[in-house]
């Protein structure tokens, strides 16, 4: 029973999409990836020739919002291509198989495609007490180590897998760790965000499919095509920032006028993501457009860098409302008091010395 392996394009056609849809998809993806016009041809050709990549998608400590985001991608082929066609050989949430069957499917894929399959990880891994996350009687850490061994590359979906997200927030009871902290020696792509934008997720997958190499990454392992610019730099409210026009409270006139949310704690100036360009839910809006400051969900430790609605972080070790400025002013006052005390003490303690100089001289002058 030898059947010729279908290419991705053939599988897409078989799924009922027209060639026109396919080309639209290739064009959209090359635009998302920031490629030049010739990139469209490259992607089209690649998808026409290449076969599906086996994918294992692991879920650990997470809320499945990355998967949710992914299936809401603006282009229907995106969901098809990955969920059906690039084909998830194993994923806890969406696969039909369960129990021993599921475990078998996982092991079959790992053996059959050793060194070829793509590992996608959603969620953080408890490293302190492994019992916090167990699947099929084995800990997340154990599973991840085994599965990543034969993976071609690892995609860490979302903030959980990239930097620990809320589970790793202080005091991090489970000792949650991102993928790159527990797995070494494999190419890891951190697709940041809580969740990442669907088109960004699709873009990364298509890049891997079409070019068979990992996209260019920034210093934190995020694909540069999507994470090289700050939300602030692509924000449509940016002119208000430069003009010094800020929202002072959520119910003021300035909020109505759509001024900059900087003083409401907006993390746009510190957050690298494509929200301002690609936007969410098929390009409908993004948090700032909806009047809410960015919370910086594509940055590490964003839960601990709070409070969210305050521009300055609270100073570590003090109350959450205490910023560096309050402590600075306090120290300034203390310093001023110290100076005053020292000046008074100088005039008392060194009085003799100061007067001696004058006296000596007076006697000399006589």
């Amino acid at each position, binding site marked *: 029973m030898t059947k010729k392996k279908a290419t991705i394009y053939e599988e897409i056609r078989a799924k009922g999409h027209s060639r026109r849809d396919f080309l639209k998809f290739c064009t959209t993806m090359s635009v998302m990836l920031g490629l030049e016009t010739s990139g469209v041809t490259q992607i089209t050709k690649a998808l026409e020739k290449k076969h599906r990549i086996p994918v294992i998608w692991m879920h650990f400590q997470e809320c499945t919002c990355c998967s949710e985001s992914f299936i809401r991608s603006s282009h229907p082929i995106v969901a098809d291509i990955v969920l059906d066609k690039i084909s998830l050989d194993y994923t806890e949430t969406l696969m039909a198989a369960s129990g021993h069957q599921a475990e078998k499917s996982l092991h079959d894929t790992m053996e059959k495609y050793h060194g070829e399959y793509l590992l996608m990880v959603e969620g953080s891994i408890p490293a302190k007490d492994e019992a916090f996350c167990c699947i099929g009687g084995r800990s997340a850490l154990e599973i991840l180590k085994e599965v990543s061994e034969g993976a071609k590359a690892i995609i860490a979906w979302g903030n959980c897998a990239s930097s620990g997200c809320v589970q790793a927030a202080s005091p991090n009871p489970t000792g949650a760790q991102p993928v790159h902290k527990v797995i070494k020696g494999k190419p890891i792509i951190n697709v940041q965000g809580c969740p990442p934008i669907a088109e960004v997720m699709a873009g990364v997958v298509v890049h891997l499919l079409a070019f068979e190499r990992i996209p260019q990454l920034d*210093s*934190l392992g995020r694909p540069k095509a999507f994470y090289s*610019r*700050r939300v602030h*730099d692509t924000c449509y409210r940016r*002119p*208000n*920032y*430069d*003009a*010094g*026009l*800020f929202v*002072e409270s959520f119910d003021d*006139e*300035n909020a109505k*006028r759509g*001024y900059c949310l*900087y*003083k409401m704690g907006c*993390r746009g*100036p*510190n*957050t*690298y993501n494509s929200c301002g360009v690609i936007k969410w839910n098929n390009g409908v809006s993004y948090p700032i457009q909806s009047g809410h400051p960015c919370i*910086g969900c594509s*940055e*590490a*430790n*964003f839960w601990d*860098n709070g409070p969210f609605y305050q*521009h*300055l*972080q609270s*100073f570590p070790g003090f109350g959450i409302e205490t910023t*560096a*400025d309050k*402590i*600075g002013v306090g*120290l*300034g006052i203390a*310093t*001023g008091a110290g*100076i005053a005390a*020292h*000046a008074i*003490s*100088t005039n008392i*303690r*060194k009085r*003799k*010395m*100061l007067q001696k*100089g*004058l006296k000596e*001289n*007076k006697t*000399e*002058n006589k």
Partner: protein
Amino acid sequence: METVKQKTIKEVYVWELPVRFYHWINALCIVVLSVTGYLIGRPPALQSAAEASFSYWFGWIRFIHFVAAFVFFFNFVLRTYWGFVGNKYAQWYNFIPLKKSQWEELFNVLKVDILQLTTKSIPSIGHNMLAGFTYFFTFLAFLLQSLTGFGLYAAMSDSWFPKLFSWIVPLLGGDLPARNFHHILMWFFIIFAMIHIYLVFYHDYIERNGLTSSMIGGWKFVKQDEDDKE
């Protein structure tokens, strides 16, 4: 009129021109950077119905901050160079206590000037050791402030120069922690400036050696017998 006739007093050229220029450019930069930096961190609330296209004041504040940062950094680089080619009062070893005698002087200054346990004054022509060592920490602060500042600036610049510093940001865990670090360090400069200015007044008052004006003209008054100790 009270006059003091010091037979044995002598004038010493302590601060060379580059040192004096460095000092005042640095002082000006720190004032400008602190004021603009504070405004960037905490812009005042202006209630107006203006459209953004009519004004750019916050952009200008940031522009001034960035320009002053470049001046500040290269001024600091020149001073570091002068620490190797300048006169003996400007040399690098004035700032790092490596010898035992330097540590002794440091504790001596602490005892006499800060804790005021004795009433004598300590002879030193250039920086006293405690001051010198404190400046060493300000140099570290300059460095850290430049690293974090340019590191943050790199994201909005195409120039190669700030890019040299971009590695510091992931090291601190991202833009927000880097920014916070940059902001906290500003308070070090403010508090340093308060103490620094006070102590200049204090020494001038106690020792009457023209310390304040020496940073303008370069000359200090030194009692003859103190001069040859080094």
